[in-house]
């Protein structure tokens, strides 16, 4: 129906965005009737989402004419933004943004670099940017989950941690097991995605490849490759961030800094 009303591709896209947003707002309205107030968060997120993705689309349109190495700058900017966004899950932990940015840079950056070097990811901007951004976005989510869980675990076990400190334990000995459980729980979505691949969901990248005429078998295998890369980068990011964040919650005199109000 929309296609007949909007012959221009961009106008059609915007109209489709409006319809999808309206549908999301209907759900927000339904939630409101059950006293769940998502109006502000959902409206801001929808607006931010469309502005950001249109901006990226415009940059991609420019980059298509730019040299291949220029994609490194865009991916670096994405890593910095991802670090800052997921650090918000580690409220009151000093240095969380730095820890998140370093972890995502190493976790997502290393996997992307190795896979590009090995020829798994094509160096063309149209391939490197979308696949790289998927790896970074998933590393960001995993990092946010790991830091959020770590924070909750530390706050829930302040008594145990300080008891161990009072008995002469090192900070690492007191919170090691909470860091381990944070890593484990942060990786559940990535592992479940891999488990349910093709059974419960057909990811966007595969859909896109099919729509652009790729052979279904190659599209399917490549989708597995991307999900496996996501697991590798998410795992590395989570391992690094939970290791680095441990030092941030203690003072140089081995005092727990992250705790409830005194």
């Amino acid at each position, binding site marked *: 129906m929309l296609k007949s009303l909007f012959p221009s591709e961009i106008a059609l896209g915007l109209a489709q965005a409006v319809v999808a947003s309206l549908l999301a707002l209907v759900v927000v309205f339904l939630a409101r009737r059950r006293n769940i107030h998502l109006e502000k968060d959902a409206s801001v997120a929808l607006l931010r989402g469309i502005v950001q993705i249109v901006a990226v689309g415009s940059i991609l349109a420019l980059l298509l004419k730019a040299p291949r190495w220029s994609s490194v700058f865009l991916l670096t900017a994405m890593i910095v933004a991802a670090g800052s966004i997921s650090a918000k899950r580690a409220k009151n932990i000093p240095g969380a943004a730095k820890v998140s940015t370093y972890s995502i840079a190493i976790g997502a950056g290393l996997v992307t670099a190795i896979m590009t070097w090995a020829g798994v990811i094509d160096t063309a901007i149209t391939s490197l940017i979308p696949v790289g951004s998927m790896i970074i976005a998933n590393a960001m989510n995993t990092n946010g989950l790991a830091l959020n869980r770590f924070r909750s675990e530390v706050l829930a076990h302040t*008594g145990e941690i300080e008891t161990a400190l*009072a*008995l*002469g334990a090192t900070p690492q000995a007191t919170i090691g097991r909470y860091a381990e459980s944070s890593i484990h729980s942060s990786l559940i979505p990535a592992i479940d995605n891999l488990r349910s691949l093709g059974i419960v969901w057909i990811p966007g990248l595969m859909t896109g490849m099919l729509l652009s005429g790729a052979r279904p078998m190659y599209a399917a295998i490549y989708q597995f490759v991307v999900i496996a890369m996501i697991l590798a980068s998410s795992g590395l990011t989570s391992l690094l961030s939970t290791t680095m964040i441990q030092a941030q919650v203690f003072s140089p005199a081995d*005092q727990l800094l992250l705790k409830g109000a*005194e």
Partner: protein
Amino acid sequence: MSGNERQPPGTVLRAEGLSRVVPGKAIVSDVSFEVGRGEVLGIVGASGSGKSSLLRLLNRLDEPTTGTVYLDGKDYRQIPPRELRRRVGMVTQRPFLFPGDVASNLRFGPAQRGESLTDEEVWKLLEQVGLPGFASHEVSVLSGGEQQRVSLARTLANRPEVLLLDEPTSALDEQSKAGIEELIAAMARDHGLACILVTHDRDQARRNCHRVVLLEAGRVLQSGPVMEVLGA
């Protein structure tokens, strides 16, 4: 300031001008006192008077905003925190035992320094706190009083010179409370430990303490021999 201070003979721990300020409020203000070997010093005050906050400054679980503590005449900021906390042991209101059996809890502190308690040493510690034969018991099946005794034994396993006790009997019944009080007295009398007992219970302070520091809103209201400060 010199790292070493002159102090009366027998003094193990001396707090000098301790304060702790958190955003918006002073929770401990300019508190000074000392405690000697074999002495039980009471920190007495109503709920919210800063007793527990003061205690946490003594083993440096929190950092004083001003002031310091001298342990055997040495400024505690010059003592590595892990060594300081071995020497200044703490028993908290809730015991926070680690999952596992009683013996593994007792072995926790020494294991942090790479030391291992023998079965005989575990047995002696448990006998000392009135729990002989409890080494292999799972901590999850212990009563509140038994858990607090294990917590005390776990702290004693580090061979501390000072024992900080933060309302150790507030969650216990009368019988368990009397048992823990007897143990504290024995630790001071028989082992020469300097004990600092935080309590809101003035009767408990009268029964157990030689001297008391009376706190109100983080400040010392009065200090001295227990009968002088709290009356008979």
